[in-house]
């Protein structure tokens, strides 16, 4: 993990980086970007891996990050925002360091996902997509997570899943995640 990335743990997800900061980071990882680009026929094709890289560094992808990413690849900022808007894992607005994604699609909805979401909101005292004041958590309703037989399903950050989540589990889970935060 580079210095840049370790540093990011505190600010990550909460603060919009300054343009210079973004450019600095892009300069730093330039060799990596060029290596990425060399794998594809067009530079545009490196967009998604680059966005993941930026997301890991800054937590969310505000316009300033999207725009600089576009220019490094030689594409239009609108082409970046289109991709960012398309995938729910790319966020344009500040989010918590741990993003709690509750599935709201049919099976989960039928098995009480709404109640789960409401409970998360109560326990954390925030609305959907609104980070907690300490920047640790934010809650989102997402589309099917592909684990319908274990509904309701909750995902936290990139790869941790919780199944059969009941409203009464919520407080305990939040406490646990505070102590052992997800990467």
């Amino acid at each position, binding site marked *: 993990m580079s210095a840049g990335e370790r540093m990011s743990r505190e600010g990550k997800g909460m603060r919009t980086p300054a343009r210079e900061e973004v*450019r600095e980071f*892009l*300069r730093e990882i*330039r060799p990596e970007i060029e290596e990425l680009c060399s794998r594809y026929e067009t530079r545009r094709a490196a967009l998604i891996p680059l966005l993941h890289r930026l997301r890991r560094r800054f937590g969310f992808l505000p*316009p*300033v990050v*999207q*725009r*600089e990413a576009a*220019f*490094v690849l*030689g594409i*239009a*900022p*609108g*082409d970046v*925002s*289109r991709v960012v*808007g*398309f995938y729910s894992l790319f966020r*344009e607005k500040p989010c918590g360091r741990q993003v709690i994604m509750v599935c709201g699609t049919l099976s989960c909805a039928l098995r009480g996902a709404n109640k789960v979401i409401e409970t998360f909101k109560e326990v954390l005292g925030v609305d959907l*997509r609104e980070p907690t004041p300490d920047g640790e958590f934010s809650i989102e309703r997402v589309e099917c997570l592909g684990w319908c037989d274990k509904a309701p399903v909750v995902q936290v950050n990139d790869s941790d899943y919780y199944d059969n989540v009941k409203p009464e589990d919520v407080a305990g889970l939040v406490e646990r995640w505070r102590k052992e935060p997800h990467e």
Partner: protein
Amino acid sequence: MGESEKVSAPETVKLRIDDRFVAVPAGTVVLEAARAAGITIPRFCYHPRLKPVAACRLCLVEIEGMRGLQPSCATPVKEGMIVRTQGDAALESHKEVLDHVLRFHPLDCPKCEATGHCELEDFTYEFGPHRVSYYEPPGLSGVDYNEKPWSPLIRFDRYKCVQCTRCVRVCAEIHDCYALTTDYRGHETVISTFADGPLHCDHCGSCVDLCPTGAITQEPSRYWKKDWEYEHRATICAHCGHGCTIVARTSRNRIAKIESDHEIGNNGGRLCSLGRFGFDIHVGEERIEKPRVRREGRLVEVPWREALEEAETMLRGAKNSKMVALASGFLSVQDLFAFERLAKRIGAAKAAESREGDVLERLSRECGISGSTVEFDEVTRASGVALIGAGAWERDYVLTILLAEARKERGLALRAFGRPPYRIARHCVEVRELEPDAIRALPVGTVLIPDVEALSEETLSAVMEMVRGGDYPLLLPSAQANSRGLGLFGFRRSVLDEKLSEAEILLAAGPLHLNARPGGCQALIVSSAHRTALSEEAEIVFPAALPYEKPGAYLNAAHQLQEAEAVSRVVGENWPDAAIWGTLANLLGDSLPLTPEALLEAAREDFPALSDPRVRVGGGGEEGGRLPGAGLPGSREHEGLLASRSDYLRQLREHLERSRDFSPFPPEEAFSC
């Protein structure tokens, strides 16, 4: 030029659509074939200016032998095809698609700018459903559906959008600007600017033209008149030497907005911000509305007759003085011809601020040609094009985007000499310093587009040499509507440089950069639509009509002689320059006819080359050093002498300044990283 110029007669394909038999060229899509037969197939995402994407599914029809309904907008005709547009399945599917679109359409047609020319309105009326089956308030997904101005000139009402993406595509495919995009996905897809921010773009207005509904509209004409109450008057844009065809929408002789029509003119529906929004130049406090004459040191308003007679007396008494007649490239052929006749009669030297006339003169002397040897469409079909010097990409916006499109579509090899902005550089196979040797090394057949105003002697000579050899086609961009005409009539920059300082009498016609009377000048006679530093120093000031206010012909950069209409009423007591200078010439003994038609006729007699614009003619001049270019945002586009009078363009300039962070293109420094 291009090796692949195989000319073969387009094959004709015959097919049946409903009860009609149609014959259309091969490659035509079914939807267009139907249109040719007078059959309407509803469509949203299809537009003749764009590549078909078959995304909206509104245009589905039955085609015999094909399973299921087919998108008529993307299905090419085949010999013997049988198409049914009126079958139950097709009609039912139109209804379904429209029902879906209408699910959150506000139906506020009575207060919508697009009422009367809205495709959603028309198709719903004709094809149904006439009752919407369910209604879903917009904005459930957290997307901001509120209407908002994208800029002071273009407005976006998201809730009226049908997601056809024509706006996004015209902006990218044709205008090479990429200012619009889609956001979110599925049924929540919305059209958006980058980061849903202010619209930082060329403001060509093509997205407004292509939007089938009232989602994207022009702000200035909002809540003025309903579409059908405006008159349509096609005319020529007078802001630069491309000479785009514009459609002025007027009400009681006032222009409400400018639209474009891709079926007429040399611009195929393309316009720049000047052509689109620079029409409000007639208003403002600076407008001169009555003749004025200097009395006891002050300019006072007098009747026309008095001003003209005073000028006549002045010119009669000045037989032996050194006189200079300085003309603007914004004047029409008629204006320039009358002014030229007056200059000839009184023996005044013909001067211009532009170097174009001198370049034309050299071309005719050294190369035996007298201007551009190719037209705009020939340039875009060439195998290679070289832009030589900044004026080559700053002056003519429509030419620039045509080149970008040709590069993307046909692989045109674009080269630039000088320091082109990123927008141009990114399309170039080669960008080099402006050096004669580099230019000499260009592949044979490359179309040369030199900056006529600012090239060094050396570079210009290199261009001349190459053109003389006959291997390099030439297109001279011109900065003002009639720069080429100015050249044709023999008005020259070299004359200005040589004679201005010693002029005793100066006649100055039309918008000029000159802003102080020369030292030795005893009498200054000016025609101008607006007060300028020069007009305020004059002895006599004639109030002139603006291009939109008078009929006139203009010779453009590609030697097309195009006739413009008067689309707006004349402000005050203003006369066209043709009438001002023609009357004065007649008072001094000439016998010029003073109608536009007769003047053009007479001009053609005196200058036969005007009769056939394809004949390259010699001589001529244009305008001065700091010329306006109808260029890209950030270039010199708004320096235009006419454009600088437009309040809309001033608002646009300020908006673009404020919204820099939303530009689709990087500031140059971003490229160092």
